[in-house]
């Protein structure tokens, strides 16, 4: 009994240290998305083309019938050139990638795509940044996996690496294609 009193604080300390140590391994930058299993928020964005209203833009209602990726990017984003080859590979493998150019001037977005290539099946320009707030975006790049019914099923914060694509997102896309 006497000994227990001396051991208890040590047990308490080890417990607390373990709890806090686990906390250190968590990345506070990765906020869980509020949108998982919820419909994509409504948006109707202009395009980035050198045309009145930027040409054909991107509307949330078009996210139906097939699973799609929605990539939020910008020409000013440091990690986007690094992610770009992966997006091109995804598009080449036959999975549709749509884009939102976030807080980016359309001419800058166009210059980026002219330089690095354009893997996107459709593009909307969110220069005011309101749609990004509706999506809960905290930084670029971020990518949403949207299922056949227009619901968000997964959110990738930061660039998609080849490993994340092969290991997580591609299997999910294949599963979503198989869903009714």
């Amino acid at each position, binding site marked *: 009994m006497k000994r227990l009193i001396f051991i208890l604080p040590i047990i308490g300390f080890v417990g607390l240290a373990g709890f806090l140590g686990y906390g250190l391994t968590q990345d506070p930058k990765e*906020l869980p998305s509020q949108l998982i299993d919820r419909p994509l928020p409504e948006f109707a964005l202009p395009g980035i083309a050198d045309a009145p209203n930027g040409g054909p833009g991107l509307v949330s209602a078009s996210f139906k019938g097939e699973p799609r990726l929605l990539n939020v990017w910008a020409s000013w984003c440091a990690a986007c050139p690094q992610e770009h080859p992966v997006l091109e590979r995804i598009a080449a493998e036959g999975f549709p990638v749509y884009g939102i150019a976030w807080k980016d001037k359309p001419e800058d977005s166009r210059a980026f795509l002219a330089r690095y290539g354009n893997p996107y099946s459709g593009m909307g320009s969110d220069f005011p940044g309101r749609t990004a707030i509706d999506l809960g975006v905290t930084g670029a790049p971020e990518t949403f996996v949207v299922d056949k019914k227009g619901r968000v099923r997964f959110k990738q914060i930061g660039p998609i690496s080849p490993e994340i694509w092969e290991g997580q997102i591609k299997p999910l896309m294949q599963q979503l294609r198989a869903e009714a």
Partner: protein
Amino acid sequence: MLRLAALAAGLLLATPAAAVMPDEMLADPAQESRARTISKDLRCVVCQNQSIDDSDAPLAKDLRLLVREQITLGKTDAQVRDYVVARYGNFVLLKPPVEGDTLLLWVGPFAVLILGGIGVLLWQRRRPASAADTPLSDVERAELDRLS
């Protein structure tokens, strides 16, 4: 002395600068002050330990404008806060609400205080009659005299 007083006065007058730009502010001072109060409680999700009121990040500016827009639309403070929470989760509240997963955070310190208090009480009660009650022996008294 005068220089020191000037320094002290300077430090006292220095207040933390807010990131709110004049062109963001609302014309109505009452609405603007509500916007400031709400903004101080909302976390900037880019630079996570600053409020959007303090942060110069572009996303924080967008959120400040959004808060002001919602206020001019006639929303209450709680509705504006809920609007942001619906998009970014409870994490954006610098003062997290009392809920299941935050219970430890809110109750923890009080629980530790109460447990510690009970411990101290038990320890006090179990201690044998304290040594202070027994008078000093002659040897001790002599030693004390020698020391003083």
